[in-house]
């Protein structure tokens, strides 16, 4: 979806505010919201792509004015309701519905460290998706405007680049976000010359790399 989240190349978002000695969380509630996101994900009722897609569908004015963790909080509420883990009435009253079963949390405190810092990526040798491209090959990002989720930013669409590296096999966000299957594909690091993306105002020596799924690309 050509949404408000896809900001690459916009120029009117103001100066970058750099905070010195910035805390990890600016208030207690931010850490709790971060924790909700990570613990609730363990129920596997949704996936990371769906979380991003849910956030992308916040009304644009809200997306831009909400703080980061406020956006997350609203996404979590929506996912809780859509997955039926929680009912709207329960959110309103703050109390579990009468007779609802008491569950056992999917993520326990003792599993936090290993889950978040000890995992190994296993996607390089995943079966079922032959690569269509190889390092050094010229490709073009497709000119596509799906109404669903995608990880092909607008600023790269229609532009030509060079495959830098095959990064391995990953679920396709476009279908995974909508619970329509993982459709694993090769992801490539694709190098675009800056003037190809931005015209003569870009420095000819500069480059932008994007990680793009196989089906986002066509031979150039």
């Amino acid at each position, binding site marked *: 979806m050509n949404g408000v989240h896809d900001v690459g190349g916009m*120029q009117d978002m103001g100066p970058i505010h750099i905070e010195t000695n910035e805390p990890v969380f600016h208030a207690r509630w931010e850490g709790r919201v971060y924790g909700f996101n990570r613990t609730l994900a363990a129920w596997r009722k949704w996936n990371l792509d769906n979380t991003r897609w849910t956030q992308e569908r916040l009304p644009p004015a809200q997306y831009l004015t909400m703080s980061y963790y406020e956006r997350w909080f609203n996404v979590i509420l929506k996912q809780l309701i859509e997955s039926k883990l929680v009912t709207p009435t329960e959110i309103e009253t703050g109390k579990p519905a009468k007779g609802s079963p008491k569950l056992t949390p999917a993520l326990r405190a003792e599993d936090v460290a290993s889950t978040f810092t000890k995992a190994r990526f296993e996607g390089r040798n995943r079966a079922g998706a032959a690569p269509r491209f190889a390092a050094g090959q010229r490709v073009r990002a497709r000119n596509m405007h799906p109404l669903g989720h995608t990880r092909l930013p607008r600023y790269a669409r229609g532009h030509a680049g060079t495959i830098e590296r095959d990064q391995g096999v990953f679920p396709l966000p476009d279908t995974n976000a909508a619970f329509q299957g993982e459709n694993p594909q090769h992801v490539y690091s694709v190098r675009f010359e800056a003037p190809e993306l931005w015209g003569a105002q*870009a420095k000819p020596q500069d480059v932008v790399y994007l990680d793009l799924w196989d089906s986002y690309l066509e031979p150039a």
Partner: protein
Amino acid sequence: MAKSKKPSLARRRFLKGAAAGAAAFAANPQGGESQHAQEHDHDHDHQAVPSDLTLRVKALESLLVEKGLVDRAALDAIVDTYEHKVGPHIGARIVARAWLDAEYKRRLLTDADAAIAELGLGGQQGQSMRVIENTPKVHNVVVCTLCSCYPWSVLGLPPVWYKSTAYRSRTVIDPRGVLGEFGLKLAEDVQVRVWDSTAELRYLVLPERPPGTEQLSESELAALVTRDSMIGTRNVSSPGSSSQTRRK
């Protein structure tokens, strides 16, 4: 503001102004935000927070715990993990090792996941790390234009500026201008490589080792390596230089 869940757009725009920060939080005397307002000035992008958010988050936590969906101790452990255990010091260890051991650096640049695992470290489920090297002629900088992808397992959680639309939007179109805002001016003969984290690859910049560090130990080197140098918005300063005293 205190009772309104949906302030008007004009009101929200007003609240975006830095001067409004203190007034907005004054409406929330019991929350953590008022303390926050006293701790540092509000020159960043996260202040337009409805004052009932503290209470709404608290209410949701009670509900989730009562339903057995969330273990409160797990929430505490997650917050503790990112406040005290996982942060830029992990990335700095990796950088220092690479500076001292050319063979390790080669492995790190070729297969970062395996090289990071050599140090007893891991990553996040479903993600793969890549380490990209700065040289006198190449400067790398990392961004996520579509959301806020960041190498949590080696740098912890990102600063607010990394997640801001200002940084996300302009880094791809005007990287030299953005780096200038961090005080980094790059020569014309340096190539800027911007890495937009559009998939599940997570990028760590291997900054250049500064001069004057030949005698330093691995841990002394690691202490020089800043978060921003591993994102690519600054370089690592030599020990004792003025910018080292305000390092980030």
